[in-house]
């Protein structure tokens, strides 16, 4: 096997700095030729842009497992009872979708805000607070849906259909709360002027994914329950 001695990759001034599309050799390939650590940190990588896809993949696998369990369990026995979904779920869906829109508005405003054109736009923090509020309202709405089912006498162990309803909605709500933690983190970082673009992007991707996941779950529950 021949020894290959490669020149270190040249730094392309047009590509500096990278905009977050990691993977092709990583951000670190932009380190200047003397390999100085402190300069490297200025081009600090944004592993969160990769990591968020990793997280979303794990969540997808988790809900895929729950979904297949639902299909198998429904098909394995005749004891499956259907019930009508509480109508508040549709209202909650609108809340979650609206929160995605507000987060997207704030994400765009942050770009302008942090780009030094502060005076032209109002602070994006307001939109983040609205997102936070809508998210909390969604979780509260889910709680109301559980109360409705309880009032109908449908508990976790009443029937496999209600079991799956509670398991799927509760797991999703926990993940939504995790996303709200991300939004709070973004608000804190923004107020300290230490927000990284990649952090905001990752939070937004996660949040939009929660909306998409909820649409899928709603469809699944509507079809199967």
């Amino acid at each position, binding site marked *: *096997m*021949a*020894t*290959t*001695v*490669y020149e*270190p990759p040249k730094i392309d001034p047009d590509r500096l700095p*990278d*905009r*977050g599309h*990691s993977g092709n*050799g*990583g*951000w*670190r*390939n932009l*380190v200047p*030729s003397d*390999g*100085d*650590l402190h300069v490297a*940190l200025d*081009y*600090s*990588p*944004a*592993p969160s*842009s*990769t*990591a968020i896809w*990793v*997280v979303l*993949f*794990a*969540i997808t*696998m*988790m809900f*895929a*497992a*729950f979904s*297949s*369990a639902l299909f*198998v*369990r429904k098909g*394995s*026995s005749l*004891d499956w009872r259907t019930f009508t979904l509480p109508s508040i779920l549709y209202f909650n869906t609108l809340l979650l979708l609206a929160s995605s829109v507000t987060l997207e508005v704030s994400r765009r405003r942050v770009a302008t805000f*942090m*780009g030094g054109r502060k005076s032209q736009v109002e602070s994006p923090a307001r939109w983040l607070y609205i997102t936070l509020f809508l998210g909390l309202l969604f979780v509260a709405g889910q709680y109301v849906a559980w109360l409705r089912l309880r009032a109908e006498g449908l508990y*976790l*162990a009443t029937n*496999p259909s209600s*079991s799956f309803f509670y*398991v799927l909605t509760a*797991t999703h709500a926990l993940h939504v709360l995790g996303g709200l933690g991300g939004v709070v983190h973004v608000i804190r970082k923004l107020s300290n*002027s*230490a*927000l*990284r*673009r990649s952090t905001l992007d990752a939070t937004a991707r996660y949040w939009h994914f929660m909306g998409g996941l909820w649409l899928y779950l709603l469809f699944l529950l509507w079809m199967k329950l």
Partner: protein
Amino acid sequence: MHDMSAHAVQHHAPPTSFIRKYVFSLDHKVIGKQYYALALLAALSGMVLSWLMRIHLGWTNAAIPGLQLLSKNGAPGGVMTPEYYLQLMTMHGTIMVFFVLTTAPFAAFGNFFLPIQVGAEDMPFPRFNMMSFWVTFLAFVVLMSSFFLGDGPTLGGWTQYAPLNAVGSVGGPGQGLGVVLWALSIALFCIGQLLGALNFISSTLDLRVKGMSLMRLPLSAWGWFITSCMGLTAFAVLLPACILVILDHVAGTSFFVASSLVINDQLLPHSGGSTLLWQHLFWFFGHPEVYIAIVPGIGMVSHILITNMRKPMLSQRVLIYCMGALAVLSYMVYGHHMFVSGMNPFSSLAFSFPTLVITIPATIVVLIWTFSLYGSKLRINSASLFALGFISMFVSGGVSGFFLAQPSIDIMLHATYFVVGHFHMVMGVAAMFGIFAATYFWFPKMVGRMMNETLGKIHFWLSFVGAYCIFMPFHYLGMAGNVRRYSTFVNDFLQPLIPVHRLITIAALLTGVAQLIFVYNLIHSRFWGKPAPDNPWEGTSLEWSTATPPPWDNFGGKLPIVYHDPFQYGVQSSVGDYVMQASPEQVKTEHEEK
């Protein structure tokens, strides 16, 4: 527009307090050592459990002094009951598979060396990394607590088949609280490993230094990276399965327990659950888990062999593709664990085919090793011996897999010691040999001292011969029809096989004692070993370019630049027959000079 702050938030300052340095450390190297210590503790616990089981199998009525202290009901007078045998067996399997074979080769060595080999100062998310270890540690504590709470640990085996895993305490000792603790422990373990996988994948993709293309990663780094991808998929499925089991126990749901089930004359209130559902969810995790245990070993052993052969593998690229193929195929074969479960026979056929196909990348890996070793001047040391031992165990255990892959043969052998012998060799002992090889190889870098080579070689030969004495007869027992999971074979058709069991027990005890040599060597060398130079094995990857042991930011404030492929041996450079990845020196191979 790029990052909005000038400072990278993922990098942490050097630790100053004792707690931050050694307990809740953010440093991937300390976390790696913590994982190693946990795996060592777990391995010793699991080994003691296997001794207890083996003594009982050989001498059924013999009292084991002190065992009654561990469980008054399980071992009255020191003689274990059949139920307690099953409880010990379950704990042995769970501890070994999760807390040894997953944590040591993947989490321990991967944590310590993956960031250094890619040229990073740390993992990208040190806090998640710290949580990963402590959640795993908590999982271990929860699991071990089941020895002392309620009526002991669960007896359902490490696979925890339904419906036994969900019927509650009516199913036997440990089937109430024991199962809940087991499922809780494994759920926590899944969370810990998912956090770990997040860091491993992001490190490999995002934190590589300048010049470090993916194909320039050493094979060990590839092993860890591929394993983290597998772990991400597998543990994300086991976690919901554990949640459903816990709900069946504590909330009265019926996911896994069928209708009208009567156990111990008691009609269960559950209805309509699917017992096969658990097996599907479990084995979707369970089979990749086998590769999670072995693929880091394949990577590390390749790395160690190359360094000691002083020449590259025949094809690094093909080895990487084979590890990737093993990872992908591992998700398509899981049904071969369920040939006797009552699954549709057509499904068995569908799972049998990829099971035979997966032997192809495994065989290619072995052939690459064999033909690379051919004609090489292998440096014989403890690490290379254990690497050779890994290949030997991997092949010996793997060959029986060809038989088991076929449903018609598997139906006969499935519930016998043949399968026990198969998986102990190919996944258990082989992975352990990989861990030992990696320990002898990387210990100098991890603690700054050399291990004792003589003791290492004695440890190897005793372990190598001992492992064959233990696990080869298992195959014979299986073919003779010796069923597995039974606690005793007195007074039945298996009685004539008891002498074989006694031989195995003696071999297991002696091989176990030989492991104490390793533990002594580890502790003695840690404090009184010969100080290690920076590059004792004349290696080329980045961990050998930095100080021994590495400083907290791995490279002392200067990031390396990578100029070479990972294993440039058999060349003439200013330092010898190798050129390091971070060396800008231009070299020619002997071949090119001719």
